[in-house]
């Protein structure tokens, strides 16, 4: 079953605020094998000119699991999660993520395109602080394998 293209442009409500934890940043940095001390050592981060430790560029993936379920699970979309592959991810980063930030993500379906047997759908999320400061734009291209309409 093809995805419901009439949902292109649908904007979903902002996710509940996610407070960025200091230890979570450090654990994330350790989990990806990072060695740069700006992620784990407050003194090193200050020496590098930051007010506090900062999160690695891909840390915002943590927030994805807060704002995406409502899109992926939208019954009107018709997505079968077992057919899903992450095709592409991009971030535009507007300011460093630091401990204590309270982040919300507001996702929009910006595209659904068939290429061959697969469909590609794009979810773009505006990530900002609870008080409205822009932090990043995250864009995920999700591949829905084998759901494109058969060409006749």
């Amino acid at each position, binding site marked *: 079953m093809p995805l419901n293209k009439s949902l292109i442009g649908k904007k979903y409500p902002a996710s509940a605020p996610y407070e960025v934890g200091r230890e*979570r940043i450090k*654990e*994330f940095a*350790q*989990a*990806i*094998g*990072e*060695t*740069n001390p*700006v*992620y784990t050592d407050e003194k090193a981060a200050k020496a*590098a000119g*930051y007010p506090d430790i*900062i999160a*690695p*560029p*891909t840390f915002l*993936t*943590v927030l994805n*699991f807060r704002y995406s379920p409502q899109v992926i699970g939208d019954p009107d979309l018709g997505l079968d999660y*077992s057919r899903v*592959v*992450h*095709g*592409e*991810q*991009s*971030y*535009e*980063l507007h300011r*460093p993520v630091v401990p204590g930030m309270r982040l919300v993500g507001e996702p929009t379906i910006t595209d659904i395109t068939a290429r061959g047997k697969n469909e590609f759908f794009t979810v773009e999320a505006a990530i900002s602080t609870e008080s409205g400061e822009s932090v990043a734009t995250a864009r995920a291209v999700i591949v829905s394998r084998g759901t494109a309409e058969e060409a006749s």
Partner: protein
Amino acid sequence: MTINYADVAQGEDLKPWEYRVERVNLVMYAGASGDFNPIHWSPEFARAVGLPDTIATGMHTMARIGQYVTDWCGDPGAVVSFKNRFTSPVVVPTEGATVVVKGRVAEKLDDNRVRIEVEAESPEGTNVSKAEAVVRLA
């Protein structure tokens, strides 16, 4: 050590790098990111859905490529944008896997920005990710 815009030439190669990834790294990443899809930690589950073994999430590969770029430019806060296309899975058997990362300065832009192109591949040469980062240098 940060790199200056003036010292960078368009077309210049970044020093290639490689990293090892083992299942424990995938488990750590699952915990830290919140992605608990069992294809990333259960070989039985991965095989049952037709994969050769557990696979790293694309986001793990993207994070390692991010390290490659920020270690080169010296300042993680310099990353303006970062994009990865996951071209094929990084298969991680019990003995682990090696990923080879190569990059180059694809373009010098205005405002001290440069566009870096990165390719990650298996030691046999199968591409797993094509990435692009724009970083603002000193």
